[in-house]
Each structure stands twice: as C-alpha cells, then as structure tokens.
C-alpha cells in the first residue's frame, strides 16, 4: 500500500517535471569565443527569449582553436548543439560528417533565401539543400592612412580607384632612410593575411583569369591571367619597391603602427583599427583592374541546425535560427560586431551605403566571390609558398605558379568529393 502511494507520488513528480520541460524547451547555441560576437549573441538571445518565453537558449562557447574539434567530439558522443555557428569553408566536413541537418524547407524556403540573401550564400548549398544561413558577411576593402596620403601630397579624399592609381600612390608614400631601409611601406604585402584572397579571387580575375573551375575543385589560375596577376603582386616588392613581405612582421601590424600607407583587409579588422589614435584612416573599394573589372572576396560564418535536434527542440531551433538571420538581428550584429548584414535589403540601405566605412565594403559585396576551400590552411600555404619562391629563391613567376597549381590540385584531389 505504501509502495503504491510512493509510486503514485513518483509518477506525479515525473510527469510534472515532464510538463514543465514541455513548457520551456532548452536549446544550445554554439559559437567560438570572440568578445563582440558573444555579446551580440547574448543580446539576440535575450530578445528572442522575450518573444518566445517557452524557449530558453543556452550559449556555449569555445576558443577558436578548439572549436571544430569540440563540435566533432560532441557529434561522436551524440550530444551536439541544436544551433551552431560554422565557417562556410567547413561545410563539406560538417555536412558529410553528419554534424548538420539540412535546413527545413518549410521554415527556410529556397526562393526566400535566394531572393533575400547575397548570392554568396550559395556556398552553403549542397545538392538540393541549404545547410546554414549567415547573420553577417565580411568583405575586403583598401584601408589607407590619410596622414601618409597628405604627407605625400595626395588627396586623402580621393583614394586610388584602379590598380595603376594604387601603385602610383604606393610609390609616392613609400619612405626609405638614407641607407635604403624601408621606413614606410606604400602597401603591405602579406600573403598569410588577406592577400591570398585578394590574389585568388580579385587579381586573377582582374587580369583575365579564373582562380578555379568545377566548383573550385580544379585549379585554373595557372593561366595567362594568373601569371599576370602574380607578376603584378610580386612586382610590388621586386620592381616597384613599394612593399616588403615580412615588414613589421605582419601587414596589419605595419598599418596599425602607421608604417604602411595602404593595406587590404576585411571588415573583421575594423575593431582593431578603430583603436588607432595616431592618425586618421579611411576605407575605399578594392581598386579596379586594367579593364575596369571589379571583384572582391567575401566570407562568412553561417548558423546551421545540429543533426541531433529533433521534435520540439528542432522546432525551437528553427525559430531561433529564423530570428538570428532576421533583418533585426543583422542590425544588432552590425552595431556590435561590425560585420555586414547578409540580407541585401538590410545591407544595401541608403544609410549604410553612404557610411564612409561600411559603404565600400557593402559595394564590394555585390560583386564578391567566395572560394570553396577544402582545407583553408593548406591551400593558404600553397599561396604563401608561391610568392616566397619568387621573393626568396628567385624562381620565375611562371614556374612558381605551376608548382603552386599542382600542389593545390593535389590537396583538392585528396579531399572527399
């Protein structure tokens, strides 16, 4: 008799627990640690929970270096996040490894995605399915030091618009001491930074080449256009003497220290450059190519739904993902993190385009390309080695680009299809 009472009490307790659980679904959101990103997400979560009191979102973060390993380890143990952030270049790995599930078409119809977002979201599509949507995107622009421009007699309100003008400005702003040591670079040369993207997706195209074909699985830059692009890039150091790879250790460090008049970098650098006190700087669109062709490289972190989310957690995850990719969330993200909205309507507003800093980045987005990396670090290394062979070993541009193309092709071929 006492047993029965106890049992009844237990059942009641459990069912009450289950009832309250149904009332408040908890889902986990994962991203890597980056101060402003975490802060922006906290704000988004607070807003979301206010609108959806029956859902709680728990933000879980890991250091960037550990992030991918953590996601994979969680997948192996069967306890992944419900919504997670991923770099677009990781998609192949995450989708084929079963970390992600395709975005449900009812909540994220393809027509909406293709109409509303910038075309670069196509990098999140595999087969017939999208696997994630970005809140924000990043593109490249030319940062220039206004003081260095004024000192060299250039108009700081009129930045270079073409590669020729850029080289001319770099020649004027390069400073050397009596014994020929570089004191100030005209333009930074740092293939380990953003120059790899500038070379691959911008210069190669501007000089008439294509970086890749076959969905970025076939290297195509070992062509006339590619050679001209590499010659242009390496000539900045070897012929024009307006920059030097390794000067001040890193390109961004040189610019930040006021020892480079120009550098090519992304939206994510804005935070670091905003701390500059010694001089004013400005942003311009990437210079156009010889025949006026413009190009840019865009990249982004997308948010996807974890494979483990089912039932009510999946429903909650859908709602949360819809909110973090809404125009409202994009605005909050831009304000806090500085990255550009991923929806064209939210991004290309008159106010944003007129903004002296966001404007050039946004204009670049409209004609930007993304590279579908299979192993970004390894592919970057082939680009770094390509210019180093020219700079340090005196190898010819033609030989170096051929060697780089075959090395990168080997990486692409080794990746699972």
């Amino acid at each position, binding site marked *: 008799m006492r047993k029965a009472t106890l049992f009844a009490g237990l059942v009641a307790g459990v069912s009450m627990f289950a009832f309250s659980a149904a009332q408040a679904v908890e889902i986990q959101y994962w991203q890597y640690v980056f101060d402003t990103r975490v802060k922006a997400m906290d704000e988004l979560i607070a807003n979301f929970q206010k609108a959806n009191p029956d859902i709680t979102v728990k933000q879980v973060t890991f250091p960037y270096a550990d992030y991918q390993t953590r996601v994979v380890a969680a997948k192996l143990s069967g306890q992944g996040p419900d919504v997670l952030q991923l770099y677009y270049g990781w998609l192949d790995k995450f989708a084929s*490894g*079963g970390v992600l599930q395709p975005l449900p078409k009812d909540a994220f119809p393809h027509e909406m995605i293709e109409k509303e977002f910038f075309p670069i979201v196509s990098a999140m599509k595999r087969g017939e399915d999208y696997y994630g949507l970005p809140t924000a995107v990043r593109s490249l622009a030319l940062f220039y030091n206004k003081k260095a421009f004024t000192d060299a007699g250039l108009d700081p309100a009129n930045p270079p618009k073409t590669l020729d003008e850029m080289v001319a400005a770099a020649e004027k702003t390069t400073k050397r001491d009596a014994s020929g040591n570089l*004191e100030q670079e005209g333009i930074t040369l740092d293939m*380990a930074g953003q120059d790899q993207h500038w070379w691959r997706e911008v210069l190669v195209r501007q000089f008439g080449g294509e970086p890749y074909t076959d969905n970025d699985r076939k290297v195509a830059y070992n062509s006339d256009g590619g050679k001209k692009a590499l010659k242009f890039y390496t000539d900045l150091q070897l012929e024009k003497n307006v920059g030097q790879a390794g000067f001040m250790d890193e390109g961004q460090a040189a610019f930040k220290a006021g020892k480079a008049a120009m550098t090519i970098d992304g939206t994510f650098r804005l935070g670091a450059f905003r701390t500059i006190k010694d001089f004013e700087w400005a942003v311009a669109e990437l210079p156009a190519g010889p025949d006026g062709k413009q190009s840019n490289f865009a990249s982004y972190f997308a948010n996807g739904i974890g494979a483990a989310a089912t039932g009510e957690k999946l429903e909650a995850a859908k709602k949360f993902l819809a909110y973090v990719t809404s125009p409202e969330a994009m605005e909050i993200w831009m304000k806090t993190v500085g990255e550009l909205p991923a929806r064209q309507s939210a991004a290309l507003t008159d106010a944003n385009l007129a903004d002296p800093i966001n404007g050039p980045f946004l204009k670049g987005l409209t004609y930007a390309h993304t590279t579908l990396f299979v192993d970004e670090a*390894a592919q970057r290394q082939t680009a770094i080695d390509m210019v*180093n062979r020219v700079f340090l070993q005196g190898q010819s541009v033609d030989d170096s680009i051929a060697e780089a193309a075959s090395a990168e092709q080997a990486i692409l071929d080794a990746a699972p299809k």
Partner: protein
Amino acid sequence: MATLAPAASTHAPHRGMSMRARRLFWVWGFLALPIVFYSVIRFYPTFQSFWLSLTDWNLMNPAKFIGVANYQKLWADPEFWKVFKNTFAYLIFGMPISLLLSFVIAYYLDRVRFLHGFIRALYFLPYLTTAAAMAWVWRWFYQPPPIGFINEVLTTVGLPQQPFLRSTSQALPSIMVTAIWAGLGFQIIIFMAGLRAIPTTYYEAARIDGLGEWAILRRITLPLLKPTTVFLVVFSSIGFLRIFDQVYNMTSNDPGGPLGSTKPLVLMIYQTAFSSYAMGYAAAQTVVLFIILLCISLLQLWLLREKT
C-alpha cells in the same frame, strides 16, 4: 544474517596473510594507481594510434582500414622528407652545440665563487620561462628594421642586415639558437651536479702525481662524467627531436618558416591532425616519430649497460 557471510569470507585471507604477503599487497596497491593511469592515459592511446595509422580516419567518418597506404603516402611526400631533414638538423647541430656550451660553462662556473649563485640563476632563468613567451621576444628581435633589435645592432656596427626568419637558409639556425639558449640552464645544472659528484680525492691524487689540468679533464673528469653526459645526450636529443613551441610561435603567420624551412616533424603532425584533420595520416607520422625516439632511447640503454 546471510549478508554477513561473504564479508566474513573476504576478510579471512587478509587476516591470514603473512607479513611479506601483506607488504606485497600494499606495494601493488599503491603501484596500481600509476599503472592504471599510465595504461589509460599513455599506453592505450599509443596502441590506438598504431591502429589509427592504418586507417583513413578524419574525425568525422568512421575509421576505415586502408593498410599501409598512409605510410606509402608519407614515403612519397616531399614535405615529409624536408621535415625529416629539418628535424635531424635540429638534433645534429643543436644537441652537440648545446652540450658543449653547457659543459664549458658548468666547468668554469664550478670554479667561480664570486656571485656563483647569481650567475647560475641567470643561466637557469630561460629554462623557467614559458617557451611561447620567449619565442615571441626572439621573433621581434629577429625582425627587419625598424623594429628588429639584432638588425639595429648590426647596422650600428656597420654590418649588413640579415633576413633571419624570412630566409630559407637562416631561419632554422635562428630558431635553433633560441632553443639551445632556452635549454642551457638545465644542462648546466645537471653537469655541475655531475662535476660535484666526482670525489675530490681523485683530483688531489692526480695533482700530487703532477698531472696537468688538461690531462685531469681528459683522464678523470670526462670519464667519470659519462653517466651524466649520456643522460644529457639522450634528454637533449629527445628535446630537439620534439621541438615545437619555438618554431610554432616564431613563425606562426607562415607556420614552419618560409617554404617549410624550419618545420619539424611535430609541427607537421600538428598541422595534419588539427588543421587538416587527417587523423590517420597524422597517426602514421606519430608512429614514425615514436620509432625514432624509441631507437634513441634504446641506444641510451645500450650505452649505459656498457658502462656498468
């Protein structure tokens, strides 16, 4: 009542244990903890990595057995041979130079009484400092002007500037110097302990017999210091074969130096595993490193056995 019976029976043998058996029981009881720890944390993963090296595991997909394909790939990989050469360059130059330097310093420091403790502490200090922090300091030292300290000094004394880390030929020696410097303090301390352990009566007898300093060093000090030297040779060899921190931190924006000129095996393993996520291939590289280290350790045992 029935529950008491098994408890009583487990107590029975313990009570009947001899003194010796009881001592053994306790010894193994205490040893069990580190043995379990080593088996789970060290040996199991080691054997696991042998198995992994025969698979194509990439973290995501279940590991599939592919035979010795990883080793064939490694054998045919020009990067591996470059890295192999670099690793042994660190060993072949780094180990003798660091040992010679530390012996000379210990030998003379042993005779210095003035500020002895202070000087010894100065030599030991780099060993205590975090490798990553030191590597960054050296990284800035090696920069071209206007920020590189060493190049500034070179310019002041009228010597040509050097590219150091930005050169395919100078980068490896530049990093090796810092690794030697960092390990010097430890080796000096060990050498000095070895020197102190040699009974002074030998020296007194030698001096009475009229032996010169050089002969004393060659006939008495060096032979009696052999166990210390062998230990340091092995210790420092393993250290140089496993060099990573300095290289990783001094050339982090082009990992492994320009055109891989400074990349050691451990860095290649790290990149293969945690940047390309080719775990099977990385495991194969680890097995190769393991075999190299094992050979060197066995060589040590053999050298020590010959002595006694």
